[in-house]
C-alpha cells in the first residue's frame, strides 16, 4: 500500500491563515485539532450524527468529522475558540449557557454554541419549537436539553437587547 501523495491544505481558521501538508483522508476535525492545535472542537461519533464537532465552514454550520480538510482548502472555518471576544470575556451566548446551566460535562458544548450562534444570526427571536428543531442535530447526554433551550432563549433576549 503506497500512501497517496500528501497535499498542502490552506484554511483560514478563526481569521488566521493556516496550512499543513496532510494526507487527503485527513478529516477537517483532525486538521483543526492536530495541525492547527485548536482542541475545543470535540469529536463524539465520527460519523456525522452527534454534532459535537460542529464548526462553521464559510459561515455555515457543518460536521467537521465528515468533511475532509482538502474539501475546505481555500475556505474559512470558525470553531468554538472564535466565539469569546477576549480571554477575560465571554460572548452573550456563552454567558447564557453558564447562567442557565446549559452544560455539564462540556463535551458537546462547542457544537451547541456554534449551532446556537448560527441560529440566532438567522432568527433572533426563535420559538421553543424552532430552537429544539434547529438543535436537534446535536446530542447532549447530560442536560436533558432543559438548560440548553433556556440558554438559547436567554441569549436571544440578551442579543436583542444589546442590538437595540
Amino acid at each position, binding site marked *: 500500500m503506497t500512501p497517496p501523495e500528501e497535499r498542502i491544505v490552506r484554511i483560514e481558521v478563526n481569521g488566521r491563515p493556516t496550512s499543513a501538508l496532510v494526507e487527503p*483522508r485527513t478529516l477537517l476535525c483532525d486538521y483543526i485539532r492536530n495541525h492547527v492545535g485548536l482542541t475545543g472542537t470535540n469529536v463524539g461519533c465520527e460519523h456525522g450524527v452527534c454534532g459535537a464537532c460542529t464548526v462553521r465552514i464559510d459561515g455555515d454550520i457543518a460536521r467537521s468529522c465528515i468533511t475532509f480538510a482538502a474539501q475546505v482548502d481555500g475556505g474559512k472555518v470558525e470553531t468554538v475558540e472564535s466565539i469569546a471576544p477576549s480571554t477575560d470575556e465571554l460572548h452573550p451566548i456563552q454567558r447564557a449557557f453558564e447562567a442557565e446551566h446549559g452544560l455539564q460535562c462540556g463535551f458537546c458544548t462547542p457544537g451547541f454554541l456554534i449551532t446556537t450562534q448560527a441560529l440566532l444570526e438567522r432568527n433572533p427571536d426563535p420559538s421553543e419549537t424552532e430552537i429544539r428543531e434547529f438543535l436537534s442535530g446535536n446530542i447532549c447526554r447530560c442536560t436533558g436539553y432543559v438548560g440548553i433551550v433556556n440558554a438559547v432563549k436567554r441569549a436571544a433576549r440578551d442579543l436583542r437587547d444589546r442590538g437595540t
Partner: protein
Amino acid sequence: MKPTPFEYHRAETTEEAVRLLVECGEEAKVLAGGQSLVPTMNLRLAQPSALIDIAGIGGLAGIAREGGSLRVGATTRQSAVLADPEIAVDAPMVAEALRWVGHEANRNRGTFGGSAAHADPAAEIPAVLVALGADLEITGPRGFRTVPAADFFVSFFTTSIEPDELLTAVRLPSRHGPWAFEEIARRHGDFALVGVAAALVVDEQGIVGACDLVLMGVDDVPWSAQAAQEVVVGNRVTPELAREARAVIESTVEPSSDVHASSCYRSHAAGVLVERALLKATGRKEQG
C-alpha cells in the same frame, strides 16, 4: 474510525470530472457534499481508491428557471434549495421534504444531486423526484443524456448513472396541484421508516386526473404505488376513498424488516401515511 487512504482530485469543470472518472476507474467515487459517503468511509464500509470532488465545479450549483421547469444544479446545497423562493412556489413538496433530510448542518454540505445519486430507498429526495416526474441530466464520455426519475433509480444505492458518468442537474417540472409529504422516522432527521410523496392533479369538480404516490422505505427503489394510484384516479378524494387506497397499499406493498421496524409495521404505516397524505393533499387544495 478513520477512512482508508485515497487519492483526492478536485475537478474544476464537468469535462475534467468525467476525464478523471475514466482515468481513476471503477474504484473511484464522486464526492459532492459527502454527507452520506464520508460516514461510510469513516466506518470503512466504503474504501474508494480515489475521490473526485465536484463541489468546486463552476456552474454546477444554482437554481435556474428553464421554460416550465426549475433546473437545480447537482451540487446545489440542500439548504439553498430549501430556502429558494422559486422552489417554494413551484416545487413546495421539495422544500417540505428537505426539512426531513438530516439536520441544518447536514443540509449545508449535502447536495441535491448527491442525495439523488446516492439513491437510498429510504431517503426523501429520490421519492419526491419520482412523484414530481423530475428529469435527471447525466454527462459522460459518451455525451449528455436525460433520464426520467422513474427510470433513474435501479436498486439499493444504484442508479442508471454509469461509473464514468456524472449527474449534473435535476429538472423539476412546475406542479401546482395538490400534494402532501408524510413520513415517519424514529427521530427527526433520521431516514424514514416509511414515507410517502403524493402529487395529484384535480379538476374543478374535485375529480383526480392524475395521482403519483411514491413511497420510501418499502422497496429497493422509491416505490410507485400503482394499484393505489388507480384507485384514486377518476374519483373524488373522500375519507372512504383514502381508506380504500390505504387497504390497497397494505395488501400490495412488500417492505423488508430491519432493526427499527418489521415488514408488518412498515406495510401498516405505509397505508396509514397514504390515507393521511391523500386527505391532507386534497384538504390543502380546498384551503388554498
